[in-house]
Structures are given as structure tokens and as C-alpha cells.
């Protein structure tokens, strides 16, 4: 695509491309020639305008707003890097960072590791198609509805889980699942895994199906046991899809919002916020838009760092192959 841009540049003034018969036909009329040259740009105009106005311009504006103090009523005032300096000592921000780490660890362990194990087991199971469907079902539910459903389960007084525990005589195990930090974050991770495990398994299964049988059979002939085959043959061959799944789950850990907002709203006392929730609360609950913008910036920089890690891993894979 980039290659056919060059010759066009050479005869840009003439505007008659070599094979463009219909352009040549209209070339006699200067107005028609201009219209023919402009037409391709009309096709891209709607998408460029929409993305520019509603996505790219706001993203750039957030960078500027993060350097201001703004309550939404008076014009923003420039305060340099004060927002970022204040973040370092803000206990709510530090809690949010810690909770984001919990989310990453939780999703890596319960979603990626468990998902990989289940995909390997399901790959040879005769009931794989049925299990896949069942495990994927919650992924069709919105994050908000997932939050509502698990709120009904984990709720302290009215919750189904505590009621069931008391009913079978295990009342001692009943917990204030959503109001005790950091248990509330762990409870919400369970809800998130309920939603996200299915898609993770399916991605791993797609990866497993691309693995050739030969190296596995060769290893089995050489006397490798099931674990050795997995560890030294399957896992390295799965590397490309693993990189994708880990990347997706890392990013999901940063942007988790819906489940937290519907289950605890980040509370009690801001104990279960993540960076995405802190950003929302500072901006649209406390109306400290400049401060909220600086949280968005931190989130973005960290997410970009993860993306760089992800892309580098992809390139390493290409070199290996």
C-alpha cells in the first residue's frame, strides 16, 4: 500500500494516474478533475471526523487537563505537575495501585493459569464443546449485570452465600465479603473470573488446535510423561497465544470498572478502588477534573508500558521461529 503512494507523488500535479481511465475522461473538465481527485477523501471524512472529535481530541485534552486544577465551573488553572506530586501521598491512590496489583495477580492465577490448565484438559475431552459453551455463557452478560448478580450472592445481610452457609450449619464461615478489605477485592475478582474464564479458555483452545501433533508424539515416543510433554513441548509451542492472553488480561486488570462500580462503588471508605474507579470518582463524584485527569494519565502510561512489554514479547517470538 505504501509502495503505490510513491509514483503518485511524482505526478501529483497532473492528477492523472496511469491506469485511471475514468479520471482521464473527466480530465478535460477542470472541475470534474478536482472532484475526482477529492472523492477518495470524502469516503474517509466521516470516520476521521468522528474519531478525531470524539476520541483523539479528548485524549490529547486529558494530557493538558492533568496539569490543571479544575472543578468544572471556573476555567481550568495551570498548576504544573502538582496533581502528580499529590498522587504520591494520596492514600486512596496508593490503595488503588495496590488493588490493581491484586487484580493483576488474581486474574493471572485464576484466569490465565487456570484457563490454560482447563484448555489443555478440554482439548482431548469428548464433552469439550458442551463445557466450552457453559463456561463461556457468563461472558455474554454485561459487567454491570455480573456485578449485580454477585452482589446478591456476596451481600452481608441479604446475600445468598451467607444465607446458604448459615443454613447448612457453617455460619462461622459467613463473612462480610464486600465490606472487609482486602477480602472485598478478592470477592470481586471471583466475579470477574466467572465472567472472563470462558473467553480465556477459548483463546487457549484456538492456540492448542494450531499445534502440530508430530513433536508431541515424538516426545511421547521418547518416553516423556504427560507433565514433561506439557512443560517442554506444548507450553513453548503455545507461546504466541499465551502472549496474547496475558496481554489481554493485564489490560483488563487496569480497566476493570463495571464490576467494582456495581458491587462496592470502590468502598467502603475507598478500600476497593482500582485506578479506573479512582479516576471516575475523583472526576465525576468529587469534581476534581484535573486530578482525575492525572490518574487517567498514570493509568495510560502504565498500560502503554505493558503494551511495550507485550509487543517486545511478540517480536522475540518471531525471532525464535
Amino acid at each position: 500500500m505504501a509502495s503505490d503512494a510513491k509514483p503518485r507523488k511524482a505526478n501529483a500535479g497532473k492528477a492523472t494516474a496511469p491506469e485511471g481511465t475514468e479520471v482521464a475522461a473527466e480530465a478535460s473538465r477542470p472541475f470534474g478533475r478536482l472532484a475526482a481527485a477529492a472523492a477518495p477523501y470524502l469516503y474517509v471524512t466521516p470516520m476521521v471526523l468522528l474519531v478525531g472529535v470524539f476520541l483523539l481530541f479528548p485524549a490529547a485534552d486529558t494530557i493538558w487537563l492533568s496539569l490543571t486544577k479544575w472543578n468544572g465551573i471556573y476555567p481550568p488553572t495551570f498548576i504544573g505537575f502538582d496533581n502528580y506530586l499529590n498522587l504520591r501521598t494520596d492514600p486512596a491512590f496508593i490503595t488503588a495501585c495496590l488493588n490493581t496489583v491484586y487484580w493483576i495477580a488474581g486474574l493471572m492465577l485464576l484466569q490465565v493459569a487456570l484457563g490454560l490448565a482447563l484448555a489443555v484438559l478440554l482439548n482431548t475431552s469428548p464433552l469439550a464443546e458442551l463445557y466450552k459453551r457453559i463456561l463461556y455463557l457468563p461472558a455474554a452478560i454485561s459487567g454491570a449485570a455480573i456485578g449485580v448478580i454477585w452482589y446478591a450472592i456476596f451481600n452481608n445481610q441479604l446475600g445468598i452465600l451467607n444465607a446458604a452457609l448459615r443454613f447448612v450449619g457453617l455460619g462461622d464461615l459467613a463473612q462480610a465479603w464486600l465490606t472487609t478489605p482486602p477480602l472485598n477485592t478478592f470477592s470481586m475478582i471471583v466475579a470477574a473470573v466467572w465472567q472472563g474464564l470462558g473467553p480465556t479458555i477459548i483463546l487457549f483452545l484456538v492456540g492448542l488446535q494450531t499445534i502440530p501433533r508430530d513433536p508431541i508424539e515424538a516426545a511421547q515416543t521418547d518416553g516423556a510423561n504427560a507433565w514433561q510433554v506439557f512443560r517442554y513441548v506444548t507450553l513453548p509451542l503455545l507461546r504466541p497465544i499465551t502472549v496474547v492472553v496475558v496481554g489481554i488480561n493485564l489490560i483488563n486488570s487496569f480497566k476493570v470498572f463495571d464490576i467494582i462500580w456495581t458491587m462496592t462503588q470502590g468502598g467502603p471508605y475507598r478500600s476497593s478502588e482500582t485506578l479506573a474507579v479512582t479516576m471516575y470518582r475523583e472526576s465525576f463524584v468529587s469534581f476534581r477534573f484535573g486530578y482525575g485527569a492525572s490518574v487517567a494519565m498514570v493509568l495510560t502510561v502504565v498500560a502503554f508500558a505493558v503494551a511495550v512489554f507485550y509487543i517486545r514479547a511478540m517480536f522475540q517470538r518471531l525471532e525464535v521461529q
Partner: protein
Amino acid sequence: MAIVTARLKETRPGGWVVTVLVGILAVAWLVPLWLVVVTAMKSTPEYFHDASQWSLPEDPLQLFANVRDAWFTSGMGAGFMASLLYGVVAGGLAILFASLGAYSITRLRIRWPFFWFVLVFSGTIFPFQMYLIPLFKLYQDTGLYDTQLGMILFYTAIALPFCLFVMRGYFATIPRELQEAARIDGCSDFGIFWRIILPLSWSPIAVLFLFQFTWIWNDLLFGLVLSTSDGVRPITPSLAGLQGQFAHSGPPLVLAAALLATLPTIMLFLLLGRYMMRGLTLTAAGRAGSE
């Protein structure tokens, strides 16, 4: 069943143990859904009367009464209609605009085709939090705040980059000979797009529409920030609002509302689940590590 056991035997000795263990997990996965449905079938007094809260509903038809109540509570019904509108219109517009752009980039004489692609696709690299505050400001300043037009415009924009990625990739696979032949027959550029390229692309369009409709239907964040009144607010913020009255309205009503908010996407999944899973692998290829 005979085939199943035969395949079990040939796979490996521990195969059935694995099948049973994963089966237990699959059943566990269905328990929350079961609880939601059963609870949504109870009346509020019935729910509070039952100590275990696991018993079967006395009258399953109570479900319809609960869903009806939910429809008229906290703007759920209006949110349902609004989300339907946004999903269909914005999803459709995004695919149309992305297809026009992809056609120009892959088939017309436009300068720097790759630049235009990267410009639009860069709309997927930022976390959503980067858009929220300036969008809120922009919407307040222009009067788009809390309007259906504003919601449609934004949802179209956010769905566009991924649609462009898919359509551009798909158009590149359509043979150029078709286009040349149509041109010789006197077809205009737009005619080629509308009568030849687009009809050939119904399969990625269907997957994209399914995918974008579901995404828009499920969005909470932008609905919270850009709208507030019934009739404009999508269904998910309405559900989140209803959630705030959990103890007051009673769990059966709230869970019936959650079911209502889940109905269209679950239906789509049950009908077209295969395409949805395909959409998932598309996403993984397209924007892993971006969003």
C-alpha cells in the same frame, strides 16, 4: 453416547476423570445463573421468608410480574429501548463509515492510505479514562450532553477503529478483477462499493455488528458520564442505579432487572454463539494489548 465412550477410551486412561472434574466446574459455573433465575421468580416476601434462599419458587410465573415491575422501575424500560437504539444505529453507522473508509484506503487513489488507517486505528490505543473528562466538557459545551444524538455519535466513534481494522483486512482479500470488470461495464466508484464490495462482505459485517451491538449494550462507563435522564440513559447505568436500592426494592426485583438487562445479549449468544466466539478471536488478533 457410544461414540463418546469410544473416544474416551482412545484418548487416554485418565480421560473420564478429567471429564468429570471439569464437569463439576461447569455445573458450579451454572449455579449463579440458576440462583439468579430462581430468585427472580420469587416475590419479595417469599424471598425474605426463606432462610436458605435456595428453595424453589412457589410460583415461577412471578418472574413475569417481577420483570414487569423492573421495566417500570428506575428507568429500566426506557434504558432498554435506548440501548437497543444505540446498539443498532451506532453499530450500523460504525460499520458503514468504516467500510467507506476501508474502501477508499484499499481501492481508491488516496494519498497516504496507511496514514489514514493508523490515524483512525489509534483510537483503540488509549484506555477509556483518557476520553471521559474532555468528552464530558465537550458534551456540556455543545449541548450534546444527555441527548440520544450525543450517545449515538460517541458509540459510533468508539466502534469505528476496530471495524476499520476488520473491513480493511477483508477488502484486501476481494479480487481486484471484480472491480476492474465492473468499471469497464461503467460502474462508478461508489457503485462498485455499494453493489459489489459490500454485498461480498456480509460475513465480517455480521460478526462485527454482533460484536459492536453487544459492546454498546454492555457499556456502563460512557452511559454514566454522558447521560442522566430516562430515555437517554442506556440500560446498564439504569441497572447500576437500581442496584443502589437493593435492600429497598428487594433482591427478586433487582435480579429480574439484571435478567432484563442480559436478555438480548444472552439471546444473541445462544443463537449466534459460534460467531461471537469467532469475533473474540478477531479481537484477540486485532487489539490485544491496545484498548
